[in-house]
């Protein structure tokens, strides 16, 4: 499903965040990308999500080489992924429900159907009762669950997350880990960049350890 071959990412100024990284992630697998800060975890997640382009090497997702994508094709590729960001990137000028509806509006789902699916996603993460709340009124854990609802509402084939449990108390972090395990159980491919030791120790999936931009 995801095949990286000699993947390198060099930023302007010469800093090489990833150097010749190769790996393979099968459909339905759960993989944790681990490593210290600056190891290249976030860069790798961004490359898989087509938020950034590799400097060299190839990255094939669902048979599509992301390195050779035309700019106009990128948005359509991104729709296959559910993205969860470390800082959640929620929109604070609208309700929780409207935040979750955004990916559905992007694909042009009729309003009534979008509301129905967004409510189902909120229900899945235990936030249906707070659908009208502004994200600013939610706790850190709730905000992260809201971000997860937004990521899964479009039924993505791959769920990508960048430090989803960072800055959360242990109980909230456990809720998030449980949610990911639930999605993994129903066959969603999950790639998580994390340095959450508790998760790394108890994860039943594979781990991809990065150090200074290389797989170790």
């Amino acid at each position, binding site marked *: 499903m995801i095949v990286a071959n000699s993947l390198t990412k060099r930023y302007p100024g010469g800093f090489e965040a990833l150097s010749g990284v190769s790996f393979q992630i099968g459909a339905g697998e759960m993989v944790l990308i681990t490593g210290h800060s600056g190891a290249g975890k976030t860069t790798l997640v961004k490359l898989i*999500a087509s*938020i950034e382009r590799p400097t060299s090497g190839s990255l094939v997702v669902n048979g599509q080489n992301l390195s050779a994508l035309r700019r*106009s094709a990128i*948005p*359509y*590729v*991104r*729709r296959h992924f559910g*993205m969860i*960001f470390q800082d959640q*990137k929620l*929109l*604070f*000028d609208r309700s929780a429900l409207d935040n979750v509806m*955004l*990916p559905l*509006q*992007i*694909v*042009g*789902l*009729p*309003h009534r159907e979008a509301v129905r699916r967004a409510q189902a996603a909120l229900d899945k993460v235990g936030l249906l009762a707070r659908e009208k709340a502004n994200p600013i009124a939610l706790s850190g854990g709730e905000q992260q669950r809201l971000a997860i609802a*937004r990521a899964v509402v479009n039924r993505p084939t791959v769920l990508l997350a960048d430090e989803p449990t960072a800055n959360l108390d242990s109980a909230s972090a456990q809720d998030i880990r449980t949610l990911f395990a639930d999605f993994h159980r129903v066959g969603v491919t999950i790639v998580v960049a994390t340095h959450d030791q508790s998760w790394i120790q108890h994860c039943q999936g594979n781990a991809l350890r990065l150090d200074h931009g290389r797989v170790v």
Partner: protein
Amino acid sequence: MRRWLSQHRAALALSVRRLLAAPFNTLLSLLAIGIALTLPAFGYVVLDNLRELGRSASGVQEISVFMEVGAARKDIAEIESRLQTLPGIRFTFVPRDEALKRLQKSEEMAEIVASLPRNPLPDAFIVEPADASPEALDVLRQELASWPKVAHAQLDSAWVKRFDAFLRLGKLTVLMLAGLFGAGLVAVTFNTIRLQVLAQAAEIEVARMIGATDSFIRRPFHYFGALQGVLGGLVASGLIFAALHLLAGPVGELAALYGGSFVLHAPGVREIAALCAAGGILGWLGAQLSVSLSLRRFD
């Protein structure tokens, strides 16, 4: 198709919400756009009224066809039948006796006419063509003058040409004003949309990361610019109606002083629709320029 419509409906609803979200700013923008559209549009309305005035002014569109003094009845009948075959004209026949009677009624001429031993006036036709352009009038005059037994075909072409030149100059001025203020409208929309893009930066960034296409992001801004332009067109129409209402009285009084009557014509539904459409197109253009430049920072 359903999805496409759904996206457009959502974009339109979002742009309406954005317009209503800051009513004072929206009002100021609409006023600026309305004034920018009013000046050239009002110039157009004034020119249209002047053209109407020129048409209704006596003699402007008339060609007097004077027959030779010795022209017989059958010659006059021949000219009359030729005139009947010409498209787009109206004509009246003025017999020489009738012309003399009219001249006798004139205070200044009565004495002179009375002293004449015989009627020196020829029979004449007064021709009123529908096409009042100087070129068309001149061509018609030349044709009429070439007909048999026609002594002279007279057209006050200098007056018509001067008036037409004035109208053309006015038209050019209105076009220049329209270009200038159209650019102003684009600039106003450009700036409004630029501020909108800055205000919606977070949403744009997130939307792009989760698969929004450029057209999805641009669409609400396009609708916003076009809506603003259309509403600005309506404001301009209102201002023009108000100005015409204020001018109607003084113009009527002025016309009465010259012994005539003149009513200012307000723009019709078609003109108002054209003004709103022009505002909408220019607003869309301003939005397109602004959004294209502003979105580069998200690449």
